[in-house]
């Protein structure tokens, strides 16, 4: 399975992709393989847990252990219950017999929980505006650097806006990404009004004819009412210049996040109408099951997956692929 980044974005002509030198340098892999590298660590533990159960029969104990394995992946209580109930129905109806079919069913049922909304990034506007939000430390700035790099590769001219004026050295971090990716960064001093930076950024984008403006915002806990208001204000500032923007409002969720990820996504969505999720740091042992819960319970598409710190470490999301890796074939082998 391979993919073309020009298909990941809406508004990019299919022939636009040029093989960038940096990609060769960093040793670009097929998405499946590099994602699998990240995920395989996470999956092994789950696989071992499940393998013991799934060899022969599906008994009461097995169900409980499947439940625990799902909970252990941070899929969350209610989505876990939904999955297990569906599987039980299928088993009762004789649609699932034996472990091999159970694994396939588990994947299918889980994949079906994901939102069916468009997982592509909409940049078919001029300029297209992407607002990046999320709680502190979830990888907003890094994700922006990666998206900018991919946009450049498909022939778009992105502009970055450093509206995280709060965290010490956040501006420097984005500027450093701009340098690496060779993309301009609009910024002001630390502590300046983020709304003003956004205004400047959009003016600059229109003056320069940039195709895509990506706005970095300060990490904020969804419980900080004043900061959430500030984010709402930024959206109003954006709309003064580009009325139908932001065209994408993405929230980064750290794959290690537990059930609080649901609350994060819900409150950010309430405040600024999130259009999609970037699941970051999938290269650890965390299984990222919170993505299932967020997508299922809030009907938000997972759009991208971050699997490392390099520019190339960003993958488009694919529910079938994701669940295939989450519940791998090793479940049966590793007994």
């Amino acid at each position: 399975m391979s993919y073309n980044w020009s298909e990941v974005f809406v508004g990019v002509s299919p022939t636009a992709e040029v093989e960038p030198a940096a990609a060769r340098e960093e040793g670009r892999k097929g998405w499946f393989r590099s994602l699998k590298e990240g995920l395989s660590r996470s999956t092994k533990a789950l696989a071992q847990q499940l393998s013991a159960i799934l060899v022969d029969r599906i008994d009461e104990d097995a169900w409980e252990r499947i439940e625990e394995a799902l909970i252990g992946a941070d899929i969350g209580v209610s989505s876990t219950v939904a999955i297990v109930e569906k599987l039980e129905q299928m088993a009762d109806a004789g649609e699932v017999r034996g472990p091999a079919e159970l694994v396939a069913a588990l994947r299918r049922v889980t994949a079906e929980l994901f939102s069916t909304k468009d997982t592509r990034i909409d940049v078919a506007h001029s300029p297209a505006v992407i607002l990046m939000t999320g709680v502190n430390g979830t990888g907003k700035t890094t994700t922006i650097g990666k998206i900018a790099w991919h946009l450049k590769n498909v022939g778009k001219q992105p502009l970055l806006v450093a509206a995280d004026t709060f965290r010490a050295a956040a501006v420097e971090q984005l500027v450093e990404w701009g340098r690496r990716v060779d993309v301009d960064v609009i910024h002001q001093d630390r502590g300046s009004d983020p709304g003003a930076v956004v205004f400047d950024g959009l003016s600059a984008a229109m003056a320069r004819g940039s195709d895509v403006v990506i706005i970095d915002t300060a990490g904020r806990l969804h419980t900080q009412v004043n900061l959430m208001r500030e984010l709402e204000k930024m959206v109003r500032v954006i709309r003064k210049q580009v009325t139908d923007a932001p065209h994408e409002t993405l929230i980064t969720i750290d794959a290690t996040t537990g059930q609080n990820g649901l609350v994060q996504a819900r409150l950010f969505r309430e405040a600024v109408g999130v259009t999609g999720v970037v699941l970051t740091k999938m290269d650890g042992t965390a299984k990222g099951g919170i993505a299932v819960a967020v997508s299922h319970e809030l009907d938000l598409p997972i759009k991208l997956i971050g699997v490392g710190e390099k520019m190339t470490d960003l993958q488009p999301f694919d529910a079938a692929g994701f669940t295939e890796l989450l519940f791998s074939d090793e479940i049966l082998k590793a007994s």
Partner: protein
Amino acid sequence: MFESLSDRLQGALGGLKGHGKLTDTDIERVAREIRLALLEADVNFKVVKEFVARIKERALGAEVLESLTPAQQVIKIVNQELTTLMGSTANKLAFSSRPPTVVMMVGLQGSGKTTACGKLANFLLGQGKSPLLVAGDVYRPAAVDQLKALGAQLNVPVYDEGTDADPVDIAEHGVARAREDGRDVVIIDTAGRLHIDEPLMEELARIRRNVKPHNILLVVDSMTGQDAVNVAQQFQDKVDLDGIVLTKLDGDARGGAALSVRAVTGRPVKFVSTGEKLDGFEYFHPDRMASRILGMGDMLSLIEKAEQSLDAQQAAELERRLLKSQFTFDDFMDQLQQVRKMGSLQSILSMIPGLPTAKLRNLQVDDKAFDRIQAIIQSMTPEERRHPDIIGGSRRRRIAVGSGSDIQAVNQLLNQFKQMQKMMKQIGSGRMPKNPFQMFGM
């Protein structure tokens, strides 16, 4: 969004008054609620399993005291067990008898290490120490800059060698520098890393061997899910932790990771970090965390915060004036400022037991209201502040203009003040008001 465990237990056992003893069915029901609540709080499922088994054992046949409802009885048991699991007492930092004491901070990317370094430095300043920060994260873009900015804010020196040097050297040189300059605590920031990143974990181990820190603290995001156990285990195996710093506790995550990490590593949580400001850092109190996971508020933390921030002398003076019923606008200003020293109103409110967090989230406390009140008071003459009764119509107009507010706001404040004086008289005469926060219009 999450129903607190206390609420769940009340719900499950609410109708059980006068049973005398908890029956098997009661306990099964309770066990289910506890299991769900802990899983929703992100406590690792293995830890949950063991924990629930223990609760069941203790609750079975436990005599229900007359003074407690069965639900309260169970909450008490759960609270005790949670506290025991997290360690019974607050666990302080180990200071070396031969300074400098070296503290090394480790953890995943984005867990809040660098900020925690700054906050720890500030915490130590408050204890009369003279810390030195060492910028050992040479990989993340601008991490060194971030630490320097924090150091500048705190007026604490930062030792760095840019981003090209070897972190092991930087750490060693930093400790040497502290010794030369007579700084008594060294805080080493390290690169955020994945616990499965072998070369980086090895680098940490080398820093540990060469510098021999007295405290190695693992920084853990309180929003971490089930994976917290793997992370903690790996760091424990590679660098042998001394304790844990739990960050971002001002969010609404229940922080079940604290429980998992403690259970897996056997190492205590030493500090908790809250908020954006550098003073949001304190010793961890297991009993209070137990209450948080249970959703029971955190009265003790509030009391301690108040004790730290309120100037004892000023408080005594205020009390004297209160008794004489001479509460003036000057006193009011003092009081406002003292309360504000304790942190944002939101953070204070979040620690009061009995105020459900869900409700709190919707309650928008406007710290700016305080600014407006201050502006109005500052527009009064000293005479007016001492004797508010003399403030008539034209004075009100003048004050309104002077403070950039309007007459209604001035009137409102004067009315509130009058009520407050009345309340203060009650306190003075020994009758406590029911809700002391009434004075802030809550």
